[in-house]
């Protein structure tokens, strides 16, 4: 099983949910397709979807909801 890193495409603020009162997009263990949205990165008031990029299962979530992230920072790991 290969490990795939989901990285932030841009610097900004990472969100695990679509709205403050919504459920998280994914939890550890969740199955994902390549185009599954796993989070959002807010950059200069614009929200960008973060997709899994690979089919598999979420192994680890490394960034908390609402935390600042850098471009290229690993957000999650997926067991492909």
């Amino acid at each position, binding site marked *: 099983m290969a490990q795939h890193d989901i990285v932030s495409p*841009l*610097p*900004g*603020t990472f969100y695990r949910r679509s709205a403050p009162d919504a459920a998280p997009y994914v939890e550890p263990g969740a199955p994902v397709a390549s185009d599954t949205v796993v989070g959002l990165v807010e950059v*200069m*008031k614009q929200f960008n979807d973060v997709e899994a990029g690979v089919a598999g299962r979420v192994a680890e979530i490394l960034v908390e909801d609402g935390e*600042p992230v850098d471009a290229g920072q690993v957000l999650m790991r997926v067991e492909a």
Partner: protein
Amino acid sequence: MSAIRQPDAPCADGASAAFYRPQRIRTVLVANRGEIAVRVIRAAHELGMRAVAVVSDADRDSLAARMADEAIHIGSSHAAKSYLNAAAILAAAQRCGADAIHPGYGFLSENAAFAAQVEAAGLIFVGPSSAVIATMGDKAKARETAQRADVPTVPGSDGVVASLDEARAVAAAIGYPVMIKAAAGGGGRGIRVAHDAAQLDAELPLAQREAQAAFGNGGVYLERFIARARHIEVQVLGDGRDAIHLFERECSLQRRRQKIMEEAPSPSLTPALRDMLCASATRLARQVGYRSAGTLEYLFDETRGEFYFIEMNTRIQVEHPVTEAITGIDLVRETLRIADGEPLRLQQHDVAMRGAAIECRINAEDPAQDFRPSPGRIDELVWPTGPGVRVDSMLYQGYTVPPFYDSLLAKLIVFDESRPAALARLGRALSELHVAGVKTTAPLHRALLADDAVRAGRYHTNYLEAWLSARRAQLAAPSEPAPAAREEAA
């Protein structure tokens, strides 16, 4: 909360003290960031006031922090934890002994509860009273207040329409096309358009059902639909007793309801319409006892030659420099003097309009990639200078633009004796502008400046979006300025 830099000796005394001696405001806390924080600090220093900046984690090295006499850290980069954190800002004000708080624009600037807290803390809020902010911030109350001041509002039903018969009568009176809007809707949701009576008959019940399903309230009201509206706004200035206007700005070039380019005067008003429009704004400002700088936004229906008040912004606006350029009045300094207790120094006949001014918003966005945000380090920076050119910005070479706030990097303002001269000057200034390290919207402005309709001042609020979709491929080309714009700028 911690002091980043110890206060310097107040910059005040010396040359500037001769120009103005503050009565109540020795120290003003600037509760904002970016270019507007820089703008307010500049005005405060010219008046001999100490200026204190508040900064988030991301803004410790900001130009505002460097220019201010003191910078106080108020929280993490997230605006909710810093620039929207009223308690942290009030604590910072107490700590530095501020007499006043200037809210800038955005963040807490139109938050009536914050203004009330500032007042309750015995501090001066540089803006209108919290009561006026509350009244004008409520769309229904603002409309009602405007009508009482005999300021035209968009023709429509008097609240919710009870029946189809009533809707037909209202639509016939205001004229088609009409918008059917959900009373509980907002932000463009729950709107249908009917172009004639038959369509109204069909759409109204649908709109009611839809509103019931979407908002749990089936109430709908009617408003005249203006297909090609222009966005024109009037600057007012008041001291709580008297108010004057400083003419209008036209801001119809918008993308996603964000203004991109603004100018003054509006190229679409006749002198007679200008007089009527500006007089209506002064009436409303006087009616509410407006204090400080404010802006009344109107829709202008060019085909009918009619204008309608839509809302008031109870704060300084991003595009205020175009008004400063054509009137020669420093709005930010005037508002600080009013907050300092001075009565309005100008009467209406003291305010004259001269020439033409245009502002371009230079944003950290890539027009070639659908305006993707482009934060990052400013590796190279050359500002346009020379006659009639002004740049308001928080950039410096080596500064890193953080990703946490809006994308406005700079405002390039040109002023000249006429609109054609200002257009030529803008082309010249845009050709001098050089920013490396982040992508900016400068290429968009160069391309817009080459557009015949923009040059002729013939545009409306939906013009830019259509223009952009028609030029998607052209804008996606990797070259910097569009060839036409480069020739023109040369």
